[in-house]
């Protein structure tokens, strides 16, 4: 297992992403951060905390979306234990920042976008990921990236507050 990103790098990236989100959404209403269950939720929370440090009373809300019921590979692989969605506001007209830990094939993001639709029609959705490891299978690209990490499709990438690790398989 190789460490490609230290715990400190994770904190730095999250802070940088927070600044980029503010810059990009300077004019207009406060965006809503939505973490993708389960890997994206703590990162969404961490970005929210970073945003609060930069600018308190920013009105930014944080929620979670479970994309499991919208996946295109249901029945093709074992499903992890269930997680719930919790969306703090009606998303109609909102700017949503979808947050996940690793962007890989793009299929989870597609499922999450579809799941989001059930809570309203956002004005726009931007995508923030801590790691982009490539190998996209769908036309999806991130707006905010912590780090681009070249991997083999078979590698396993694990992300936590302790850092980012790649294990060859």
């Amino acid at each position, binding site marked *: 297992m190789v460490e490609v990103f230290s715990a400190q790098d994770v904190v730095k990236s999250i802070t940088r992403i927070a600044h980029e989100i503010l810059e990009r959404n300077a004019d207009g209403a406060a965006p809503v951060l939505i973490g993708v269950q389960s890997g994206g939720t703590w990162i969404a929370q961490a970005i929210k905390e970073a945003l609060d440090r930069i600018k308190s009373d920013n009105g930014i809300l944080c929620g979670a979306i*479970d994309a*499991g*019921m*919208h*996946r295109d590979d*249901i*029945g093709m*692989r*074992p*499903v992890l*234990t*269930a*997680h*719930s*969605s*919790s969306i703090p506001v009606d998303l109609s007209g909102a700017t949503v920042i979808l947050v996940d830990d690793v962007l890989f094939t793009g299929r989870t993001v597609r499922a999450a976008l*579809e*799941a989001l639709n*059930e*809570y*309203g029609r956002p004005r726009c959705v931007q995508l923030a990921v801590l790691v982009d490891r490539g190998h996209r299978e769908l036309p999806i690209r991130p707006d905010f990236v912590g780090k681009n990490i070249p991997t083999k499709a078979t590698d396993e990438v694990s992300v936590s507050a302790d850092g980012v690790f790649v294990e060859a398989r």
Partner: protein
Amino acid sequence: MKHFLDIAEISRESLIELLDMTANMAEINRRPVPKVPALRGKVVATVFFEDSTRTRISFDTAAKRLSADVMGFAASASSINKGESIRDTIETLEAIGVDAFVIRHKTGGVPATVTKWSDASIINAGDGANQHPTQALLDSYTIREHFGGQDLTGLRISIVGDVRHSRVARSDIQAFTKLGAAVTIVGPSTLLPSDMTGWPVEVCNEFDSVIGESDVIYMLRLQRERMNSAFVPSLDEYAQRFGLDKSRAKRMRAGSIVMHPGPMNRGVEMCVDPAEIPNSLILRQVTNGVSARMAVLFKLLGAGGIPEDEG
């Protein structure tokens, strides 16, 4: 395991996982659009050889909220009336294309037997006086949702009434005790099973002696349609001794709850209007039934089945 037949086959861990999945489904049911595409293209056949309102509608709704297609079948309006056998009926429906059969039958063991004739997943929606596993799941979920926690440890549950004819009681007792609750069954000796060897329960013949000590009072329906001999002297006398009336409802412990699988016999086991007692979760059970059945359908058809109990 691709079937859902009997609580006995399910480990405590799998049961808790199903409860967690039920909570997830409950969240879907609270959404503005309570429908997800998870089981698109799957076909669920509800095959009821015995009458039912809530279980059938509940499965129907559960399947639709997961975007499965539902094939309805009621024995009373089918070729069963022309003498077609259960096996031929199942094989016919399967030839049309079915991924899961939801089966209810008045004889115990029919859903298990159907697994030999079909490649589809079989879900037991109640077989005779044997099992009603989805009811046990929704009941366990309703209790856990009310009291909080991961399982039912520390709770005292009294199941009152016609245990002898009750598949609900059999499934509930297995589920509740697996989840750590202490279960007492209460009823006249004539309505308790003749052989209870190995049942992990206490037995009591006096309703009044458990009423103040239970966290959950689970009332069972007096199943008059299954009674081929005199099990109770009269319905009035039964109501006197084992019915939940106003005075008994008042003596219940603070924070305790009343449950009933439905349909209720008003004036027999339910001598009080549940709407009048603040701690009735009877309609909550019905609501949760949809979420519990969604969890089972999704586990079997979308998530590769339920791990078997090896313990």
